């Protein structure tokens, strides 16, 4: 059973691990990569114990993230000289 449901906005991006992380009660971190998220994976696992969490996120946000023409979507106006 999933230990908890955690929204992606409550997870922290960890440069070193190249993963979104959230504290695990064992002291380590639940981890999930952007690649996992793009594939629709919603389970973030802890490398040190058997627990895992369910990540709540919108897959489109991550598919869009890989779009090189992000500014064309008009979601975030980009200042152009």
């Amino acid at each position: 059973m999933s230990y908890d449901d955690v929204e992606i906005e409550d997870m922290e991006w960890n440069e070193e691990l190249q993963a979104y992380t959230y504290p695990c009660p064992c002291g380590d971190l639940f981890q999930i990569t952007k690649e996992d998220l793009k594939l629709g994976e919603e389970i973030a696992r802890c490398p040190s114990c058997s627990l895992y969490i369910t990540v709540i996120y919108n897959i489109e946000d991550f598919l869009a993230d890989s779009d090189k023409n992000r500014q064309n979507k008009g979601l975030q106006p980009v200042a152009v000289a």
Partner: protein
Amino acid sequence: MEEGEKDESEGGVWSWGAGTDGQLGTTILEDEHFPKLLHQPLLSSVSSLACGGAHVIALTSAGKVLSWGRGNSGQLGHGEVVSNALYPKALTSLDDSFITHVAAGWSHSAFVSGLDFSAVSLSAVFLKRISVESDYTGCVFTCGDGSFGQLGHGDYASHSSPVKVSCFIDQHVAKVACGMRHSLVLLKGHCSGADCPGNQVYGFGSGKRGQLGVNIDRVKSVNVPRLVSGFEGEEIVEIAANGDHSAAVSVDGHVYTWGRGFKGFDDAHTPQCLNSTLNFTKIALGWNHALTMSGEGEVYMLGGNHPGVLGDPQNTKSEKHLPFSMHSGDQKRQPKCRTNRLREFVKKDSNMTALEFEDFREANLEKVPGLDGMKITDIASGAEHSFLFSEHGEIKTWGWGEHGQLGLGNTSDQISPVTVSLGYDLNEAASIRVFCGSGFTFALGSGSELPVAVYRMESQESSTYFGIHDALCWKAMCSAPKAPPKFDNYEGM
């Protein structure tokens, strides 16, 4: 016993559980499934501990601080970011202060200074008396991860050395508590007889689950301390924080909780008084449960066994017999109590059948079973494990055990309290205190009930001995009717 001849079995420090970041102080990165006595000379004077996500802050009887374990956010306070520290190391940057209280969160730390040595002449400290009113400063220092504002410095910066929280410079801070991403500070009220305004509590850091208790509306985070509202003039003497939970205990024995709702309950954005006639003296928080102890030595639990841990498929067999999970088969039950007010249910008979439990599934506060009237003198909670200490020196534990954090020599979970042995026959007078981190545990033995740092309070009536860490004693001091009490430090300086 002569000073300096401290028996190790009485004054020892033991650790067990997850050792992935050196948090056990065993100098190796390995889990320990049995309590391990630490042979670190530096630890011989430790009087109190605070265990965080994977780091430990130790307070010595001389008001000095040691730390070890994970340091990747600067939470060890040594002025550097290190992946981990395997050996206890002194925090030299706090040498100017006499630290009276420490706290450890997931990746941040906090320190309360009782006395600023740079502001008090040394002769006053060693030879004369220290006036509480004039010299007790009670400042808060924080270090570690500040990305949620949990350091309280008005920004989201992290610090690898303790930095004084400017908001409290002119205040008398009594205690500090650190949760996963937030902090609480308890001020010592300026009591003057009947005109006592009550001690104030401040919160800062992440407030998404209501754990700051500063506003009915959702607060994502605040980076400067904000006053916690809703104590209705009660005098708060204890605070606690862990995970996304916060709690406080009043001098009248009322328990307040706020933050993430315990199983089946909504989040509470302001402190909610536990509706109970019991007189509570302490609360210990986990990430999904709370233990609270009454003045009569009884222990009650909020939240029950967390389904993600003890309801794990491999444990479903035992889950059916959970002695204090009131609605384990009904995880999606919506809270019927709209006010979030946690209602009390005192289980009179621990031999109730499962059917009878179903009848009381709305109940949230449950008496910890299987203690057979044993009087409990202390409680401690890790993220998902619990400890009790009885008046006869027995240590009881239950909860999640995957890293050996229960100290039973295995990695099994326990659904009801079982006895842990430290491997020593403890002296009758010995007192053990247990401190829990996320997935690890420390035990600290001392020869008496009092912390090693003992001060003498001189009032005009009598001399009273008490530990400076004890909020109730602070209260006694505050309510002393005559001249400001004086401290005469006779030990441990």
